[in-house]
């Protein structure tokens, strides 16, 4: 018990929280951009997995973590274009298509994994993105290390968070974008390009989800395994719901889950007698409980999830 009160333990825990929240935050932002344009994408797990593998692969071969990240993004976009084509242009049901992506993407990732690294019994190690301490700020006692000594992708996600908040609340394009998710018909009559916005949303969603996945194989760890995503895509989905579709709320939700993730790992070390599976359940149970206490009935962008049938021209 005393281990918990150790300031080093707490510091490590909080540091871990920030890092483990990052991939979830990327993916939650991905979903936020998608849902604000009216597209519910439940294929996040699949997009993450594909981005994770492709990013890992390129990082491994080029030994460049940045190229790996970029590839992760590109892979996510490519995969999500399948989703986008069928849901935006063919008006297929979004939920169903999201499931299709969740099945196709990991299958492709596994396939490429098997042919790239034929011996998967040993853990292949790829490139790793090292933490970059922000000069000055990282020297602040206690919180300095927690907030300012991370792989650059962590800083990137928080910058993105701020940009997202500004974009949706203070800019013209942001307002028009939101209208697409709220009332696409009205947006169309006002000259807003609804279909184009939805495709852009899908590109952003794919890219960010892919990056979130690549983060897991380049920053969190530097290996790829088939179960690496472990449902984080769905946790990110729920983060968007608790966060009430606002950047700030989503950030808090992701930090909460990051905390759970970090906690269960630390607890495994600190309390080896507790069965580790029970500890690993913490993030999932936390999601359930959070939904129970803070989840709300259908809300969010009004036309979310509805296929948009373009009036014929």
């Amino acid at each position, binding site marked *: 018990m005393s281990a918990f009160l150790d300031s080093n333990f707490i510091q490590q825990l909080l540091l871990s929280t920030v890092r483990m929240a990052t991939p979830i935050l990327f993916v939650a932002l991905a979903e936020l951009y998608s849902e604000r344009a009216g597209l519910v994408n439940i294929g996040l797990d699949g997009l993450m997995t594909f981005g994770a593998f492709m990013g890992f692969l390129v990082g491994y071969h080029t030994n460049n973590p940045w190229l790996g990240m970029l590839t992760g993004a590109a892979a996510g976009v490519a995969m999500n274009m399948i989703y986008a084509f069928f849901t935006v242009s063919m008006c297929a049901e979004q939920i169903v298509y999201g499931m299709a992506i969740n099945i196709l993407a990991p299958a492709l990732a596994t396939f490429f994994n098997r042919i790239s690294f034929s011996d998967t019994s040993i853990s292949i190690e790829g490139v790793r993105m090292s933490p970059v301490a922000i000069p000055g700020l990282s020297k602040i006692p206690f919180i300095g290390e927690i907030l300012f000594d991370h792989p650059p992708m962590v800083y990137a996600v928080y910058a993105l968070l701020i940009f997202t908040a500004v974009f949706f609340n*203070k*800019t*013209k*394009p942001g*307002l*028009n974008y*939101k*209208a697409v998710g*709220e*009332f696409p*018909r*009205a*947006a*169309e*009559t*006002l*000259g*807003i390009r609804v279909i184009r916005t939805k495709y852009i949303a899908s590109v952003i969603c794919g890219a960010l989800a892919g990056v979130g996945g690549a983060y897991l194989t380049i920053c969190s760890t530097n290996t790829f395994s088939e179960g690496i995503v472990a449902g984080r895509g769905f946790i990110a989905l729920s983060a968007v719901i608790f966060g009430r579709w606002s950047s700030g709320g989503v950030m808090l939700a992701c930090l909460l889950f990051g905390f759970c993730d970090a906690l269960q790992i630390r607890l495994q070390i600190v309390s080896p007698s507790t069965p580790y599976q029970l500890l690993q359940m913490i993030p999932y149970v936390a999601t359930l409980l959070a939904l129970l206490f803070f989840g709300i009935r259908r809300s969010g*962008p*009004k036309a979310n999830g509805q296929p948009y049938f373009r*009036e*014929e*021209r």
Partner: protein
Amino acid sequence: MKELLRMVNISKQFGDFYANKNVYLTVYEGEVHTLLGENGAGKSTLMNVLIGLYQPTEGEIYLRGKKVRLDSPKTAVKYGIGMVHQHFMLVEAMTVFENIILGVTHDSSFFINRDKLKKEIQELADRYDLEIELDKPVTEISVGEQQRVEILKALYRGADLLILDEPTAVLTDIEVKGLFQIIRKLIAENKSIIFISHKMREVLEISTEITVLRAGQVVKTLKREETTGQDLANLMIGREFSPNVYKKVKAEGETVLEFSHISYHKESKHAGLNDLTFTVHRGEIVGIAGVDGNGQSQLAQAATGVIKPDEGTLVLEEKQVAVFDPLAFIMEDVSHVPEDRNKMGLIGNMSIEENLVLKSTRDPRFSDGKGALLKTKAIHDYAETMRVKHDIRCTSVEQLTKNLSGGNQQKVILTRELENAPKLLVAVHPTRGLDIGATDYVHQSMIEARDRGCGILMISADFDEILKVSDRIIVLFEGKIMGIYPGENPPIEEISFAMAGK
């Protein structure tokens, strides 16, 4: 007067079907040009062509003498054409200000310069006497105000030609007067209005010129002074229009429905029920009059068990209702023709057969063992009989109801609701969106049901319908009963005032 718009030989086809055929329309600056026609006559299609949502199959459009191609809503806006749709295109989650600047491109900055833009918009609003509050969320403003926002939206985008699609459908008489004042101000400033309506009284009051459409084609274009209401009605219908006159009855039968101090406040602050007390007897039609949004939906849903009142008691045939649940009401022979036939009345992806027996799948006529085995042949035969009896136009009784026309969908619902001789029928906006033929059919069915002893509670925003069919008229305003009037020789002016809250 200078010519503003000329539509020449416009046709619009959907497959083999002509929604518009050889339409000629000329609108001048500073005039109110009304497009008159019943539901399904082609008014909306023509306007959708004008605002760039549809491309005409044939024909040209000229603006100020120059030929133009309106290939998208954006282009139409660029040419100064703006439309106020019948169902408002306002984003509920945003404020009035945000709705007005949505999609606007003449200020191409990335960030929203709130102060500057608000000032611009307020000036514009003041110029045309449009009273609005920019920072209010759309969910908190009245219907009349929403309409003003829509008008301002169009003006802000530089519209010289404003299309108003059935603008008075949702307004009280007083609000209509306010709207007409705004219209007069607009034409005084040389703007033009295309006014779409099928309400004769208003058309006669505000129009400069009138074009009558029927079955997609122009019947005639005339100046207001050259015509009368009867003339126009005849032109709209295409034959000597003699409205059906139904005999009114004074029902002395048993009470089939009784509302006693019913109140309901659960939803938005505009709707709700306030201490309602009234009765419906067997063999009479009680018409609830009033502009939509004054509690009509809630009244209907309380009377059919869909919602539970917060206070008061409901009595169905001498029995006080304890359980508010649609099934319980159905078991008590209450039938419901709901306000939204597609959302509430029919399962669109099910066939006509299935929709007809929707409530009766455990009936021994249609299944063995209380629903253990559906008798598909019996169901099919029943549906066939009904199709013939009620002349339901369809490719077969296996056709999915979502593919039927509005009138035929309503026929399916009516068939289902009336075939089992209910004691009470609650019909909400039963002829909304239907053409004259279908409307007549609906009224006829209700009268017949009434004569067979059914008590009917009809809720309608169509005043003419109320006058035509009701044996007693009750006016609903802001959830309160303003008055109860006889259906025979009703005091029309008094009722109009009551509907507006006086």
